Every structure is written in C-alpha cells, then in structure tokens.
C-alpha cells in the first residue's frame, strides 16, 4: 500500500499540464511559409512522419514522467509492508532502536553473524526514519538491560546514533529483551513527540523473553494529570534469524575430577553437551585440549532438545593446568563461542614420604606402619605419594633431603641430632612432620628430644579404656570437636562424618597447655587429638594416639585413609586443591590473595590486563567483572614487590548456558505479551520494521526522473 510523507507535494503533479500545453502549442501554431522546395519537405516529412510522431509522443511522455517523478519523490512515497499495518500510526514517532547484543546474536550463518545482520537492519531502519522523528539506540545485553549505562532520551543527533550502531559489538552476555523493551519504553517517555515506537533487532530466543512480564509502557508525560495511564508503544521485533531454526550444539558444563584408573595425576573431564536443535546430532566430535595439544578425542550423540555427557581422560602435569573441551565446528552455521569450554585444574604434585617405623613387627598387621603404608599405597593414592619405610635406627642415619613428609610412628625419643635434622627439613625446606605416638613414647623424653618441634609438650598418657575389657566401647574416647573446614577433613561431607566420629580411642596423650598450636580435632573430653603448628616453612602435626590399632581402632575405619592421605598432602603443601568455583561471564569474581599479598593485576582470556575494582573493606582483593569467557590469571605480590602469577587464583569464566539454547519464542505468545497484534509486530527485515514509512520509493523515483531527463535531452538533441 502506497503512502506519502509529504502529500502536499502531490499538487506538483499538476505541472504535468505544462509539457502537454507546450506540446499542443507546438502542434497548433506553426508559422506559414511559402516554400519552393516543398517537394523535398513533403518527402522528408513522409519518410519521418511516423518516427517523428512517435518521438513527439515519447518526448511528451518523458517530460510528463520527469515532472511526475520529481513531484512524487518530493512527496516521499513509500510502500507500506502488509505485515506491519497494525503497528502504524500517523505522524512522526519517537523511535527507540534496541539491538540485541547477547551471546546468541553471535550465531553464524555462513560467514555472517546474526548480530551483523541485525546491526545492518538497524542502520537501515535509522536511515529510513523521517527527519522529524527522534531516535535513541541501546545495546541489549547483560542482566541490567542495556549495556553502557542504558538508553538515553531520543534525540535528533543522527550522527551519534549512527556511530553508536556502527561501533556496536556483540557481547558474551545473556540478554533480557523484555527488560530492554521496558527500559526503551521508559526512555521514549522523555521525548515530546506523540508517537512512540520501539524497533528491536533480536534472534527472538525464548530465553531472553519473559512472557509473564507486563507489556512495555511509556510513562505518561510529566504534565499529564495524576493517575494517567501509560502509553502503549508500537513494538516491532525484527527477527535477525528470519524465522529459521538455529540448530546449535554447545558445551554447557565441564567437570574435572581425578581418575585413579588413569594412574598418577590421571583426570577425567566430563563435558555436558546440549543440543537445542530439533534434530539429533550424531557422531559429534569432542576434543580435550591441554595447552595447545589435543590429548583426547571422542564422539558423542546428542538427542534433539537434549543433553549428553562425554568423559575424556588424560594424565595432567602437576600444577595449575588449563584445558579446554571443544566440539567440532559446524562450518555452515552455529554459535562458535559455546563450542568449547575452558577449565582450570590444580593438579597436586607428587609427594615423597618417609615413614619411620618405631615398632616394626614381623607380622605385618602388627607392624606400627602397616596401616599408614596401606593408606599411602600407590593403588590408593594414584601413585601420587611415594612412601618409604625405615626403622628408627636407619632413619636416624638416613639423609632427610628429598622427603616432603616424615612420619614418626611410635618412635622412641629420637636423638637430638635427628631432631635437629627434622627441624632443619621443616624450617628450611618446608618439609612436613607427622608424629603419632605409641607405647615407645615417653612424654618427658619426647619433650626433651624434640622440644619445640612438638606443637605442644606431652604431658602424660591417658587410658580411657582397656581394649577388649567390659564396657570399653562406652568408655573409649571419640572425636568430639573436628574442624571440618580444614583441608584434612574437607573431604568429609555431612553424611560421611559419622565414619570419623565413630572411631574409638582407648589411649592417648594429654598435652601441656603451653605453646601456640592449632587444634584440628579433639576428643570428646576436650583433649587434643590432632594439633598443628607451623615450623618455619613447614608444618608439624601431632596425633596424640597411635597410627596402629594399639591405642585406637581408627586405623581400621574407613575415615582413617582419607585423613592420612590428606594429612600427608597437607604437610607436603601438595594438597589436592579444591577446584576453583566456576564463574560466569557477566558476573564479578572476587580474588582474595594470601594474607599480606595484594592482587596487582588480572590478565583476561586474551592475555591482556582487565580492569577491576577494589572494595574498601578488603583493599588487597580484586573484584573482576567478567566480560569474556576463558581463563583469568592474577598477579599478586606483597606491597612494593614485583608481582608474580598466583596459580591458585586462576579461574575460568564460562558462558551462560541459557544463551546456547536458541529455541525461538512463540510469536503469538510474544505478541500477546507485548500488548497484542494491535501494537506489536514481528517482522523479517528492517524494511518491514519501518512502521509508518515502509519501503521508500523516492530515491527510485528520482532515478526515474533523471533517466527521463537524460532521455528528453537525447531526443531533443537529435
């Protein structure tokens, strides 16, 4: 349907009468001339009569066309698309252009992304706005609605709006299109122009639209009487995907855990792969990369609208390891950004332990080190802990270099020289020392020999109950207070704590209340069971009972094994770290360094420094806004010292899995949410989004006029 922006110019069509009058004038007023050679005039005229007549008619037509084209072009006609009829109103409209800049807009069809298409459509829509229509633009991404401080009031500064659109880039964030439309409607309220229109350019993914939200309303004008209702704007949603299905497979979650079956430092990476398409994806290749190398590959079938898990295993190097799970790229179309997910895993280093057996026995089960050796056996630690057992005499003469942990099990008070070697190992090399007691331990001799190596001096040996005697079970001591948050006990969930609490201890050492030490666990009578003390760069942990069944039944309980393994790792400073909690793009992550250090710099996934802020309460911490997916690394240092990378603070920011689900919203429901078909339309292109303007025809008319002018000139010159 044809419409005109300036219909008054149509009066110019009356000027068509001019060439007609000229034509008639030329036809009716020839000058008479008696001419001698009329025969030749007659012959020429006869020869050319038909062509001349045709030319005259053509000239007349071209001149009429020229005037008509100019008059029509000035009236700025446009072809109104059928689909948006209901959304049109007469007169100029303040227009808010909402450009969806969420992650899903990075979806690629061929080589062009939905965002690029949407941006081009938005620019076209801007060009088509009338000169009396103010415009504002907003990039819809992130939980807060618009990025970059929201949408301003519509203005006539087209240049600024155009620049903003031209420089717009898609984000990695999720979007809330419903919130953006509401914010755009609010911004439109600041324009005095009566007509209000929102044109949103989006992929119309269902996850970005809340169908239960109220429709966007433009607030009433400031001078409106109180209680005036809001104005319902015309909303045109331009579908960047043009109603086509957007099949997509994505890695939506990654879990990394040790795998004993893979040997020392063997890990399995479990990737959850989602398929938002309507067709099952078969034989999708999944790769596991560590650094630049692909270390494992597999294939997975993902059902339509479903998920599948794929486990890939690899042996990882010790330290902080960054890796990535990747899907094979779909060349034709897809969202490339969610085809992979990074992860960071803190792989503990190998530990070398020396078990000093204070009470060896020929019967293995009676050997003091039996349970400890069993707990640290390679089969149970994945080969991560290499333990060597020596008796007390051999140990006293053996060099302690190279051992990360030395475990003294029921060793009689060692010679002072050996005690000094232990101290040196702890203080200088950071070695850990675990001391378990037993019948060979004389408290006074121990206090004398080990001195400040002991967290607290031994006082005396307390017998709570005699093993095997009547009522032993009731009288035996139990673990009372346990610091469950400590690395030693962190492995116990609430359900598993019973296994530790049920252990019975019949005899244990009481300690003198001297010295500064940290009690990790104590018996139900309050006596320390496990007590720790830092020693230089190392630590000393004292267990006040035996590591064999002599004084306690703990070694035969399931809970003994993880605690001992954790203890060795803890003392060797090679504790299997809790994997960093996953972060999501769009969130903020607070990085807290160790006491006395300060986060100086944070490097983003591209290796460049990313901005962060500090909070007054924790000036050494860094609060990092996460704008892009991938690994983030922190450089920390005490004040005034060159910062170095702190691997334990490394983490990965992932994408919002919602954005990988590109299922489209139901159009009928969407229109209903936006206020019905009267004010909401879904269009396939910016031309359809033009509302009152439709497809402009004036440029074509001007071209037609120019062609008519050229034709007229060519004909008259002949």
């Amino acid at each position: 349907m044809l419409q005109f922006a300036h219909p008054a110019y149509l009066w110019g069509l009356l000027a068509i009468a001019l060439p007609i009058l000229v034509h008639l004038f030329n036809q009716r007023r020839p000058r008479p001339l008696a001419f001698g050679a009329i025969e030749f005039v007659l012959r020429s005229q006869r020869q050319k009569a038909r062509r001349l007549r045709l030319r005259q008619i053509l000239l007349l037509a071209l001149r009429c066309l020229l005037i008509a084209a100019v008059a029509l072009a000035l009236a700025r006609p446009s072809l109104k698309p059928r689909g948006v009829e209901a959304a049109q109103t007469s007169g100029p409209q303040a227009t808010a252009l909402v450009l969806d800049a969420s992650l899903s807009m990075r979806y690629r069809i061929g080589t062009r992304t939905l965002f690029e298409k949407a941006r081009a459509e938005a620019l076209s829509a801007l060009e088509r706005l009338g000169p009396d229509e103010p415009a504002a633009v907003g990039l819809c991404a992130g939980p807060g609605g618009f990025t970059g401080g929201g949408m301003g009031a519509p203005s006539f500064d087209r240049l600024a709006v155009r620049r903003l659109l031209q420089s717009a880039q898609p984000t990695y964030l999720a979007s809330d299109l419903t919130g953006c439309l509401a914010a755009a409607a609010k911004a439109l309220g600041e324009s005095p122009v009566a007509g209000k229109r929102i044109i949103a350019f989006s992929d119309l993914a269902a996850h970005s639209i809340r169908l239960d939200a109220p429709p966007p309303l433009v607030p009433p004008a400031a001078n409106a009487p109180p209680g005036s209702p809001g104005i319902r704007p015309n909303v045109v949603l331009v579908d960047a995907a043009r109603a086509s299905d957007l099949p997509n497979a994505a890695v939506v979650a990654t879990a990394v855990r040790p795998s004993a079956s893979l040997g020392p430092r063997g890990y399995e990476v479990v990737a959850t792969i989602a398929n938002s398409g309507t067709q099952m994806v078969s034989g999708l290749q999944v790769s596991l990369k560590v650094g630049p190398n692909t270390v494992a590959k597999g294939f997975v079938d993902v059902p339509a609208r479903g998920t599948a898990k794929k486990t890939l295993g690899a042996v990882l190097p010790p330290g902080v390891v960054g890796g990535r799970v990747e899907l094979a790229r779909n060349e034709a179309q897809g969202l490339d950004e969610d085809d992979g997910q990074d992860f960071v895993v803190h792989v503990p280093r190998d530990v070398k332990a020396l078990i000093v057996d204070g009470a060896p026995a020929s019967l293995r089960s009676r050997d003091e080190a039996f349970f400890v050796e069993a707990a640290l056996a390679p089969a149970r630690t994945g080969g991560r802990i290499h333990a060597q057992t020596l008796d007390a005499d051999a140990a006293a003469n053996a060099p302690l270099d190279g051992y990360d942990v030395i475990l003294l099990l029921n060793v009689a008070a060692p010679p002072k020289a050996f005690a000094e070697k232990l101290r040196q190992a702890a203080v200088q090399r950071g070695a850990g020392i675990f001391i378990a007691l037993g019948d060979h331990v004389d408290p006074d001799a121990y206090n004398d020999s080990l001195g400040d190596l002991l967290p607290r001096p031994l006082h005396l040996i307390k017998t709570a109950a005699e093993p095997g005697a009547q009522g032993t079970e009731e009288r035996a001591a139990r673990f009372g207070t346990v610091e469950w948050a400590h690395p030693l006990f962190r492995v116990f969930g609430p359900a598993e704590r019973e296994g530790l609490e049920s252990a019975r201890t019949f005899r244990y050492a009481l300690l003198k209340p001297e010295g500064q030490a940290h009690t990790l666990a104590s018996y139900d009578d309050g006596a320390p069971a496990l007590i720790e003390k830092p020693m230089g760069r190392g630590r000393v942990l004292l267990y006040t009972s035996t590591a064999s069944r002599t004084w306690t039944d703990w070694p035969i309980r399931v809970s003994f094994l993880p605690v001992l393994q954790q203890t060795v790792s803890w003392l060797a400073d090679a504790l299997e770290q809790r994997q960093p909690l996953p972060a999501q793009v769009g969130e903020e992550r607070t990085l807290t360094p160790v006491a006395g250090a300060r986060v100086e710099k944070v490097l983003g996934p591209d290796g460049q420094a990313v901005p962060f802020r500090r909070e007054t309460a924790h000036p050494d911490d860094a609060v990092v806004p996460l704008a892009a997916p991938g690994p983030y690394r922190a450089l920390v240092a005490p004040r005034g010292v060159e910062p170095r990378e702190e691997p334990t603070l490394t983490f990965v920011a992932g994408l919002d899995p919602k954005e990988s689900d590109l299922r489209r919203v139901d159009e009928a429901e969407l229109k209903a949410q936006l206020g019905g078909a009267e004010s909401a339309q879904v269009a396939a292109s910016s031309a359809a989004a033009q509302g009152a303007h439709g497809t402009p025809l004036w440029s074509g008319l001007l071209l037609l006029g120019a062609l008519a002018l050229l034709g007229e000139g060519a004909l008259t010159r002949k």
Partner: protein
Amino acid sequence: MTLPASNVPAVLARLGPLQVQARKVMEGVLTGLHKSPHHGQSVEFSEHKEYAPGDEIRHIDWRAFAKLDKYYVKRFEMETNLRALLVLDVSGSMAYGRGPMTKLQYAAVCAGALAYLLSRQGDQVGLCLAGDGGISPGVREFLPFASSPSHVQELLHILEGAQGRGPTLLPAALDFAAEKAGRRALVIVLTDLFDATDRSIPALKMLRSRRHDVLLLQTHDREELEFPFDDPTRFLSMEDERQIEAQPRQIRESYLQQIRSFLESTRKDLARADVEVEQIATDAAPDRVLLKLLARREAA
C-alpha cells in the same frame, strides 16, 4: 516581377570583353565566329566522304573519281552565326527567395545579360517563358530569334514582366523550344528544376538528343539548400494547394540529404547525356557566375 535593371549593366560591364562561343559547331545563317555544323554550302573544303545513296550528286568530287575510281562526296565547313534560345522557368517555385532577389529575378538577370552579350556579337537570341499556358501548353510567352538591339530590348522587357506562378511545365516548354529552334541551337534553360512530375530531365535529354547544345543554369535559393528553419512551420506549396506542417529541426537532416541527392543525381544524369549543368545559389554574384561559366566554355 520587377527586373532589377541596374544589375544588368553592372553584369555586362564585367562580361563585356568576353565573347560567347558555343562549344560545338553550330549551324548558322550569319557568317561569324561560329563554325557551322552544316556541310555542303561552304566555300571552305573540309573532307571527303564516300558516296552513299541520298547524298547530293552535285557534291561528288569528280577529280577524285578519276584518280581513285570511287565516288567521293566533298564536304565543306562554313562559319555561321549562333542561335541561342533562352528558356526561363516562370513557375511558382521560381518566385521563392527571401534575399535580395528571388530565383526568378536572379535567373532573369542572368538571361538578360546573356541576351545582351549574344546580340552584341551578332548572334540571334530567342526567349521562351516556361509556365502555365499562354501561347501554347507550358509556354507563357515566346520571342523568336533575332539579334537587333531593339529585339534585345523587347526581350528584356518580357523578362522584366515575368511573374513566377503556377506549376512547373518545363517539359512541354522544352518540346516547344526544340520545335522552334529548328536547326541546331544553343538552348539555355534557367530553372530550379523543381518538377513534381520528374519529366524535366528526360525532356532536357531529348533536347540534347536533337543535337542542340543545352546549358542548364539551375538556380536555388540559399534557404532551399540549407533549410535553416527552426520553428514549427506550415510549408505552403508555391505551385499548387499542397501544404505540410513540420518541425524543421526534425526533418532537416532528411531534407538536406534529399536535396543533395537531387542535385547530385541531376548533375550526373545530365552530364552523362552531355548536357552542361551549372548549379547556382542566388546569393552568388551573377557576373561571377557567368564569367566562370563562359570562361569554362571558352576553354572547352
């Protein structure tokens, strides 16, 4: 028509020293500068010709018969006066001309000048006005051959009174002229040759075929040659009721092509028939045109 008589003396003053000479031998009754084409009555022997039946027996050279035993007839050359007939087209189209002179006026000046010259050297001059009927179909007026000054005056008087009107009837006038010329004569035809019937050219050829020396002075107005009109024009025929409205700019190219073709074909056609053609625009000075013409004929 008023003959611009003042032009004639001026033209004559330029032509005076020249003598008009016919290119070919003419039969004449007056002895003069022109060689007579008639054999048999001259005093000057020309050649022998073998006798053939029909030849006059009195011209047989008996001396030659005695020597050669064959009959030969003597042939003689005899100088004679020229008979020139001026045929002037006085049709309507000859009245065209928006410059100083119409085509008819221009042709009349040329005719008058030639009559003066011819009579001054003793040649006989006649005049035939080719136009709508007067004394005969196609002949409005005819003045027989004579060479006296009074004859020339009369001829000029007729020229002065000639009016351009009516259709071109040149073929009939040329037939009339051929008949009146009798023996070989110089026939000077002054016309624009705008003949709707296309019979004028054959008539000129016929005249030549009767062994007359034919000179065509084809006169045109400059506007007829260049068609310099721009405004829409209703062209009216000067010889009949025809008229046509045209945009001159639109047909100029075609018109020029046609008239050039007409002039070219006329010239070539008549040249093949041994008719001398001089195509003249009326803005050219008549004396220069005649001087050039006579000089060329003298050279030939």
